[in-house]
């Protein structure tokens, strides 16, 4: 067994520097690496390029890094829930690259799986395809999209073990598995870190080979963005 455990979030983020490109898992506030984000704020690293489906809300998730002007560029598919984000973008302080959600996921998976690029129909004929190679296959047009290159991937899982194996819960899975192994160093934070042998190998979602560092985070806030309920009858 190859141990991937580090003692704490400080050790997990060792080597993080200004100007790096970082992938962060999560959809909205669901399944975001809360502890890694808090540590990025504490470290005060600047000029970060973030690859993340969303940009958090004003006072949580990536919104915390935006507040401190630590992000130079955001690569996302949807950024609609964050006023500070919109302000920085419209004023030109923040660079933004909007990418179709499926393309964003696939650009991560391509990096994980060793593909330099792939063709997708998403965005053909729109401004997303401007400047990109297009090609026809079987009578339909596709756009060539390249794999991401990132320095760090920060992901959040439900359970993990010392070997770096991960299991996700519910829709908190989202972009987290496709970012594992898609950067030079993948840091996984988990709600429960278990000894090797505790997870059933049949149930592992991401094998530890894709993870370099793993640690257990304490007391996750897991904020709900849109609390919707129905009345008990």
């Amino acid at each position, binding site marked *: 067994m190859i141990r991937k455990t580090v003692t704490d979030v400080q050790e997990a983020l060792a080597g993080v520097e200004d100007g790096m490109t970082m992938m962060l898992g999560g959809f909205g506030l*669901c399944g975001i690496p809360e502890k890694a984000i808090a540590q990025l704020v504490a470290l005060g690293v600047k000029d970060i390029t973030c690859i993340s489906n969303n940009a958090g809300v004003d006072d949580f998730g990536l919104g915390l890094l935006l507040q401190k002007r630590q992000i130079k560029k955001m690569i996302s*598919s949807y950024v609609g829930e964050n006023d500070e984000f919109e302000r920085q973008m419209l004023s030109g302080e923040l660079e933004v690259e909007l990418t179709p*959600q499926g393309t964003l996921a696939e650009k991560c998976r391509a990096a994980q799986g060793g593909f330099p690029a792939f063709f997708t129909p*998403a965005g053909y004929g729109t401004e997303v395809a401007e400047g990109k190679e297009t090609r026809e296959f079987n009578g339909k047009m596709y756009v060539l999209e390249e794999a991401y290159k990132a320095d760090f991937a920060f992901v959040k899982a439900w359970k993990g073990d010392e070997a770096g194996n991960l299991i996700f819960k*519910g829709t908190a899975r989202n972009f987290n598995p496709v970012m594992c192994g898609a950067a030079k160093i993948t840091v996984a934070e988990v709600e429960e870190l278990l000894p090797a042998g505790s997870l059933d190998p049949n149930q592992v979602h991401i094998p530890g080979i894709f993870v370099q560092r793993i640690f257990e985070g304490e007391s996750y806030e897991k904020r709900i963005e*849109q609390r919707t309920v129905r009345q008990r009858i």
Partner: protein
Amino acid sequence: MLDKNGIAKRIAQEVKDGYYVNLGIGIPTLVANFVREDISVEFQSENGVLGMGPFPFEGDEDADIINAGKQTITTLPGASFFDSALSFGMIRGKHVDLTILGAMEVAENGDIANWKIPGKMVKGMGGAMDLVASAEQIIVAMMHTNRAGESKLLKACSLPLTGVGCVKKIVTNLAVLEVTPEGFVLMERAPGVSVEEIKDATEGALIINGEVPEMVLN
């Protein structure tokens, strides 16, 4: 004239037994409330769930189980969770049978715009570009005109496009229309709405073939 629930009710008639369906945010979400109970349908949400159920009872919300609108949801028996790449594989690979989404503009050639108003509103396309580029069946749910009273069914879209030539069917508060090479074909009128009213509210080419029936809403 239909309200938002009326539009959703009419679209629900297009949902067939055995369909996997992706519902967009807004009016499309309401469609789930009107699907016949005697057919089997599964709803997909692109953030990674198939077999979506209704909102949870108060106190049962789980921050780890949400839909693409970031709303807390439940799952039904037979449901599954998956990652974002697999989710869009379902969409891109045409395994999802029907996509229902909203739009700011639709053109008579089937172009759709729904993600950006330059200089004003930039929220992003989310999964919409992937959905419209791949879905075999796309139904647009929207109001026939915008808040300023201007037609949303145009000769050509003025806003940045989400996809080209992809919309086949549109259900608005006034009508059901199909997109053909010749333009919008008026299929049905909303209850109490005349052909003239629909003509006035449609900027793009509108084709009227004989008597246009009124929608039947059960």
